[in-house]
């Protein structure tokens, strides 16, 4: 398989690169100065693209690679891949579900605790010597708060399981109600936001869910409510979120994703009721290795004409 061209647009994981290099002809697009020319030069050998949360495959890229057979994404979210076009062109698409579910759910709870109990802010308080002048102020208890989950898929369910261990009642909004789960269903996102203390975004990004967290939802969540975004930046109307936080219309936010990563609205840097992570939801050594292994196994299966392990298309 060493002659199979696999295009990787941006760095994602040294381990993944290493494993791909062992098996394929890995083309690292970020290392070349003239990217468009490079793609033209290698167009006839590129049969696979490695995608991730930031880089996928749009119609233009797919059209420039006539030998493209598969897009293997190093992520579970594949909003950057034109799935419809892939289907039309017979290009397979795989992602990395399940292996990262726990890590992402862990971060949702970690962010909730960090925001409500001001863990990051009081760490800063101690490091700056302020503790010597007086204790930090009262914070808000997390146990027992109502956790609203937007999207009750694998990750949403894993968040619910953890929140339940903190005696948090669980409410949710999903495309369809799931009566087998004993959680409170709300038919609209605004109603969910009005009836929970912490709102966790855990659904895929699609045309329908773009800006699903808008001004109305933010206002419904309110000055004591906390928004946790572990989905995609575009789930949230970011300028609205920023102004709500600055004006005190929203109680707090824990964000792992943004509209235009790695750019983060600088107005958020100085406020104490937000915690900002650099899209680290699945960023553990164990999980990145597991994701990389899944990408490799999907590619190997494809090129050996075996069934894909985690196909999306």
């Amino acid at each position: 398989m060493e002659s199979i061209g696999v295009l990787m647009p941006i760095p994602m994981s040294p381990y993944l690169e290493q494993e791909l290099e062992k098996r394929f002809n890995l083309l690292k697009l970020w290392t070349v100065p003239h990217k468009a020319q490079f793609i033209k030069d290698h167009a006839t050998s590129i049969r696979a693209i490695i995608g991730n949360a930031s880089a996928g495959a749009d119609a233009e890229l797919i059209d420039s690679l006539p030998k493209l057979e598969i897009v293997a994404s190093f992520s579970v979210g594949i909003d950057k891949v034109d799935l419809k076009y892939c289907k039309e062109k017979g290009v397979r698409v795989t992602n990395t579900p399940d292996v990262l579910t726990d890590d992402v759910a862990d971060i949702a709870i970690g962010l909730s605790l960090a925001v409500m109990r001001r863990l990051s802010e009081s760490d800063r308080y101690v490091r700056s010597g302020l503790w010597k002048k007086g204790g930090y102020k009262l914070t808000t208890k997390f146990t027992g708060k109502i956790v609203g989950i937007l999207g009750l898929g694998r990750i949403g369910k894993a968040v619910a399981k953890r929140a339940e261990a903190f005696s948090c009642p669980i409410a949710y909004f999903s495309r369809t109600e799931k009566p087998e789960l004993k959680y409170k269903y709300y038919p609209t996102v605004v109603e969910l936001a009005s009836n929970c203390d912490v709102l966790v975004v855990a659904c895929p990004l699609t045309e329908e869910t773009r800006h699903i967290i808008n001004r109305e939802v933010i206002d419904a969540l309110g000055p004591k409510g906390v928004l946790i975004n572990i989905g995609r930046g575009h789930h949230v109307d970011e300028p609205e979120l920023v102004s709500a936080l600055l004006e005190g219309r929203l109680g707090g936010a824990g964000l792992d994703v943004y509209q235009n990563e790695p750019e983060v609205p600088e107005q958020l840097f100085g406020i104490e009721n937000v915690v900002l992570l650099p899209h680290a939801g699945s960023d553990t050594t164990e999980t990145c290795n597991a994701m990389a292994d899944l990408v490799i196994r999907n590619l190997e299966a494809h090129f050996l004409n075996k069934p894909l392990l985690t196909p999306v298309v």
Partner: protein
Amino acid sequence: MADDDHSELPTVLVLRRCPFIALLEPKCSQKFNLLKAWDSPLPQDQFLTTHARSVQALLSSGNGPPITAQILQFLPSLKLVVTNSTGLDHVDLAECRRRGIAVANAAKVFAEDVADTAVGLFIDVMRKVSASNRYVRGGLWACRGDYPLGSKIGGKKVGIVGLGSIGLEVAMRLEAFGCSVSYNSRSKKPSLSYQFYSNVCELAADSDALIICCGLTEETHHMINKEVLSALGREGVIVNVGRGAIIDEKEMVECLVGGEIGGAGLDVFENEPNVPKELFSLDNVVLSPHQAIVTHEAFVDLGELVTGNLEAFFSNKPLLSPAVIN
């Protein structure tokens, strides 16, 4: 009975002002006559001799002046010490026992908040929450790229030191994250299925992380020493929501600076509010200013419990949260 003849409310002595007492005062002063030692120009000993001889109840704060045998000597009528803390290391329990003075503490009222802090600190250290928050706020994500990878929580072996009400709440939470929980405690709890270790060093050797949830006593002082930290190992993480002195702080700092343990989440320190400055430059350490119990909700619950204990005492009813002091 009240020292002040003009008041019919029972008297409760408070030695030093603190934020908790200030919060409690509006409600408390309707039911009790708060005798405030700090309000007087007299030095404390003189104040107590002059005004507190018939005081039966003392309201103490966990980080206030210790209730020593010397102080108790000035209070011959004292029958009750109510503290706003779960920890009792600031009260001379032997002397209370000798004098027949009952002690009421905060029991389980904070257990959830402390457990939340312990888990929050644990996730923070493992997943580098505060460190990467700093990284993003410093504008470094855009120019330096992704932050280094953290460590997965699921599947990790967590050793809880002290499986009382707080330790149990921590255990329940961590199970939901897929951790396997073991513990060391004064005695095995046969009704629980967690693996018991009678030796804290053995627990550390078999754990990826230790969470300190026990009280500070003579036995637990510096219980987490160099031997235990070495057993925990280079990848091991320690979280402390008990008392600073349970850990040999100097040893722990050396281990952290030398990379001999993987990281620490600390809410308590040996000499608060002083924190060893070597820790300030470490990204694998999360520091918290003894605030595991400092939530609005805990203070409301605590206020009700403290008031409830005092009311029970003065109406000759059983205390709501008597501490066992043998």
